[in-house]
């Protein structure tokens, strides 16, 4: 143990030297020459305002440039007061309270770094992190010259603080390694610059664990005894436990991270225990944070001057201790939730987990988001447990349930195609025993190829949920295009399936005809007329079930995914507060359009798969009966269908229910917006837009939805259509409000049903709390919206419109001429400000009018 430390300490000498200010003469290998005077002379010939600029000198270059020896700009400039101050004595003996304060504040540095700031201004401000192996205390107090007047034992520093700090530093090293994979955005989410300073990555883990064991042993024996002699019982007990908790936390958090970042998720599942332990000790640390006593000079907030920084220091605010512990706790919770998702039961559960992970509030930190993306897809394995192609296959299966033979032998065929990397499918296809089987095999091979093409959009879509929400929305624009491209492939593939189905149908008819002729001959010979009739009926049923359905399996799945991404993108705009008040009717009009399209699409999918399932079920039953009666070859393989089929509630049912709820919410909101527009409380053409710049709302509309402009489907909504819809839907405001209220009622009932589902049925086994919270939140939106509509109905302008309607009806009965309806300019009551509140759900507002 000591040898390890010593050897590392010796290797750390250059590191210390590097970080120590050297004000003496530096011998450079470069022939530096002061050219200030030369430049000043040269510029004497220039007039004021003249500039010599290289064409390639960009804004980036301009902002990179610093003014040398300007203390605000030149971070490398050594200031006098910095030079003259004493260096912190790293071998200073510490009291237990000082130990606690130093440890806790190193955690503050760590978490502030994790929240996106530079190491130079966070973790590296700790003298112990940077100069850890300068600790060289003699552990025998009797021989220790440094022993202070209070008799603080050196072991508290050398045996306890040192391994604890080392564990934190090495943990940060593991985090840094993960973050450098580039799953999150540099400088936006995280700063990976370590300024060339190591985080003791090469220090052996076994040695660290040994040091932590030694620390724990010392605290259980000599350390405790010493503290007990120095403090009263209660205080001593509290201090001993606090120090132990910090040792335990250091060990469990390091071990957890060590297992989390292991390649291919090999050890991630074993991280759950240490993560839970770390959280437990973190709570205890949080409860004892007040015990710490500050230590002057232990943190050097100007250390960036020693490090090679490239921009002026930025004013940052370190997290508070409370924030630090809360955010660390959240990080461990997020990492544990990912660990639990590694063995996801099915694709529906996996997708739900990603949706709710990405939608958490407060948002997960950059490190868990990066880990999520790493474990999602590594070496063609999803979550370290299942091949990506089987996950995508299951997603298709769960959503559209294609006819059973399409994915028969999928895994074997995939392995074969993967191994042989065929240039054409024919090379890997075995000669089938008959033409129908041959056609089916071709389709099966193409299904494998299609799934392979679907891997990128599928994985990219899930990966987006590991980004920050701003990036999510922007990246989804690209994801929509990926699905659009795949949809073209899917359409062609479905056409091929149709051709094969037709061919199969023709072949079956031919076979049946031949069989029938054969049977007739046999009947004539044997007189079995009655039995023949039964078989005839059975074969006709079989044929009908195959003929009647020609569904677009693959395009249906792609379209479903694309619609989902489109809705998500638009609604994220609400979450990010991107829309102006006058835009909400446009946005929710578009969302309404998408949601109703999506719900109808899923209804069709369900109807088709239901028909198929019924047909398939009947066919299977008959085949079983036949099999019992007749011994003979069965061309239809009886392979097991994917396990999801045995699930108690089909995935598409829940997906459809949720889509229908959202369709109702979007419709209801649009109706309210339409009514408020008709009443003149909202305007689709706010006057200020025409004043200075934009005066063309069609441009704005097109810009907002430009990501959808060139999609083949769904057909993009254009501005005139939107105007027509808002005019049509809002033409009778009170009716529109009543209709919206009924829709909220319907949605609430559906949400109640959904809330009553088991997590297994809801496919929310990995995110139950978040899923239920989401459903509950939408339910609250429905209730609050109904109340809000009740108040809207009492609005003076609504009453004015109702009175006008009644007048028209009476006048109509009497044959009088009709008055024009009131409009924004003619209402007697004043317009009121529309208020949108988002307290129950970030996507669904509650619309009201300010008094």
């Amino acid at each position, binding site marked *: 143990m000591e040898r390890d430390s010593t050897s590392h300490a010796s290797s750390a000498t250059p590191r210390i030297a590097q970080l120590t200010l050297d004000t003496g003469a530096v011998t450079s290998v470069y022939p530096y020459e002061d050219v200030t005077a030369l430049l000043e002379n040269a510029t004497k010939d220039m007039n004021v305002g003249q500039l010599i600029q290289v064409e390639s000198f*960009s804004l980036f270059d301009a902002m990179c440039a610093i003014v040398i020896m300007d203390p605000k700009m030149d971070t490398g400039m050594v200031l006098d007061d910095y030079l003259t101050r004493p260096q912190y004595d790293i071998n200073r003996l510490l009291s237990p309270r000082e130990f606690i304060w130093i440890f806790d504040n190193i955690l503050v540095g760590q978490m502030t770094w994790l929240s996106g700031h530079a190491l130079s201004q966070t973790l590296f401000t700790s003298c112990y992190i940077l100069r850890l192996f300068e600790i060289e205390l003699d552990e025998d107090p009797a021989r220790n010259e440094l022993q202070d007047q209070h008799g603080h034992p050196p072991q508290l520093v050398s045996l306890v603080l040192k391994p604890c700090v080392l564990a934190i530093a090495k943990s940060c090293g593991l985090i840094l390694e993960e973050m450098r994979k580039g799953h999150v955005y540099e400088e936006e*989410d995280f700063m990976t610059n370590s300024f060339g300073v190591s985080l003791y990555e090469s220090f052996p883990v076994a040695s660290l664990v040994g040091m932590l064991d030694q620390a724990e042993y010392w605290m259980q024996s000599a350390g405790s005894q010493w503290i007990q002699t120095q403090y009263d019982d209660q205080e001593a007990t509290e201090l001993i436990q606090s120090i132990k908790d910090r040792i335990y936390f250091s060990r469990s958090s390091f071990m957890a991270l060590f297992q989390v970042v292991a390649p291919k998720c090999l050890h991630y599942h074993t991280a759950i225990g240490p993560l839970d332990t770390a959280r437990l000790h973190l709570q205890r640390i949080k409860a004892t944070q007040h015990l710490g006593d500050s230590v002057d000079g232990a943190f050097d907030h100007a250390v960036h001057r020693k490090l090679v920084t490239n921009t*002026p220091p930025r004013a940052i605010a370190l997290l508070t201790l409370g924030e630090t512990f809360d955010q660390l706790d959240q990080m461990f919770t997020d990492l544990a939730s990912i660990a639990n998702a590694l063995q996801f039961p099915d694709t529906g559960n996996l997708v739900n987990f990603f949706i709710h992970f990405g939608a958490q509030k407060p948002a997960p930190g950059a490190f868990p988001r990066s880990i999520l993306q790493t474990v999602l897809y590594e070496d063609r394995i999803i979550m370290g447990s299942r091949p990506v192609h089987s996950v995508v296959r299951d997603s298709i299966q769960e959503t559209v349930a294609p006819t059973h033979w399409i994915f028969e032998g999928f895994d074997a065929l995939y392995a074969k195609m993967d191994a042989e990397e065929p240039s054409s499918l024919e090379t890997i296809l075995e000669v089938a025993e008959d033409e129908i089987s041959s056609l089916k095999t071709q389709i099966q091979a193409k299904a494998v190829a299609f799934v392979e093409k679907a891997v990128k959009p599928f994985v990219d879509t899930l990966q987006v949920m590991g980004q920050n929400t*701003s990036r999510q929305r922007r990246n989804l624009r*690209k994801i929509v295009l990926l699905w659009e491209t795949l949809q073209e492939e899917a359409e062609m593939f479905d056409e091929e399936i149709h051709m094969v189905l037709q061919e199969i149908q023709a072949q079956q008819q031919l076979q049946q005809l031949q069989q029938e002729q054969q049977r007739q001959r046999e009947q004539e010979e044997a007189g079995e007329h009655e039995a023949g009739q039964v078989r005839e009926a059975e074969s006709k049923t079989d044929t009908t079930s195959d003929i009647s359905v020609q569904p677009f399996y693959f395009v249906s799945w792609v379209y479903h995914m694309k619609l989902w991404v489109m809705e998500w993108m638009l609604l994220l705009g609400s979450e990010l507060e991107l829309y102006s008040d006058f835009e909400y009717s446009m946005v929710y009009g578009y969302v309404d359009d998408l949601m109703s399209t999506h719900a109808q699409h899923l209804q069709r999918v369900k109807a088709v798969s239901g028909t198929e399932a019924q047909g398939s079920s009947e066919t299977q039953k008959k085949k079983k009966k036949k099999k019992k009666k007749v011994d003979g070859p069965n061309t239809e393989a009886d392979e097991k269908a994917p396990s999801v089929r045995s699930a108690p509630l089909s995935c598409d049912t829940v997906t459809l229910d949720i889509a229908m709820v959202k369709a109702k919410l979007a419709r209801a909101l649009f109706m309210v917006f339409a009514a408020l527009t008709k009443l003149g409380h909202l305007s689709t053409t706010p006057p200020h837009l025409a004043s200075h710049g934009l005066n063309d709302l069609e441009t704005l509309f097109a810009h907002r939805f430009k990501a959808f402009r060139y999609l083949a489907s769904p057909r993009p909504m254009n501005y005139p259509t939107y105007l027509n819809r808002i005019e049509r839907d809002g033409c009778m405001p009170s009716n529109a409000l009543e209709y919206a209220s009924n829709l909220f009622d319907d949605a609430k009932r559906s949400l109640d049903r959904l809330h009553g589902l088991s997590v297994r049925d809801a496919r929310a086994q990995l995110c139950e709390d978040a899923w239920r919270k989401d459903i509950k939140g939408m339910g609250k939106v429905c209730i609050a919206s109904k109340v809000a509509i009740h108040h809207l109905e009492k609005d003076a302008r609504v009453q004015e419109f109702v009175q006008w309607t009644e007048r028209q009806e009476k006048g109509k009965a009497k044959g009088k001429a009709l008055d024009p309806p009131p409009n924004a300019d003619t209402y007697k009551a004043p317009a009121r400000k529309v208020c949108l509140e988002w307290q129950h759900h970030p996507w669904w507002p509650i619309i009201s009018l300010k008094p």
Partner: protein
Amino acid sequence: MSPKKAKAKAKGTTAAASSGPASHATEASTPATTTATASIPASKVKTSAAKSTTTTTLAPLPPIEYVGYESEHQLSGMMSLIENDLSEPYSIYTYRYFLHQWPKLSFLAMDKDKGACIGVVVCRLEPHGRSKRNRGYIAMLAVSKEYRKRKIGSTLVLMAIEAMKTAGADEIVLETEYTNQSAIALYQQMGFIKDKRLYRYYLNGIDAFRLKLFCRPQVDTVMDMEGLTSQQGTA
């Protein structure tokens, strides 16, 4: 001490030198300082860019004169004004980058009595993205604290907008802190919309909104899917 080659903070600067999958080139720009115009209502002031001097007198306050940028003699006043509002200073090269390339797009508000620069707007105009639409950019805006609430900020912005429109801008963008409701309201009154949210855009970790103003109808050009495929990782 040796000079350190700066790798500019990506916030508001191009990150072309960034590398690796995590790098993301943000649009070459600098954060606009919008504090100056907080809580100023929409203005209807019409100022011709060609006529670069307009005088507005708000008695009994000192008269303000709006002038176009003319020479480096004005630079030190502009810099000290902007630096008062920024925790991180821009180098003189950043100012020169804008002022020497687009001198006609920068305007100053002067206290006539003192002859001091009390407000400034600095802009850029250049083709952007694959569509090569002319994008104007309000890079810096500052008004001295003692002179706020006098529509100086909005007047400067309107002068800049007019100048950029005259110079052929198809659209104008700027960034502002997402929490700065009054600045956002001001720009929205001028017709800007919140186009994007930029995560932790500012050095203090606060998100920004990129606001955009369309200067001319462009239904067709908006539809060119500008940047969708070319803006990998861009704002």
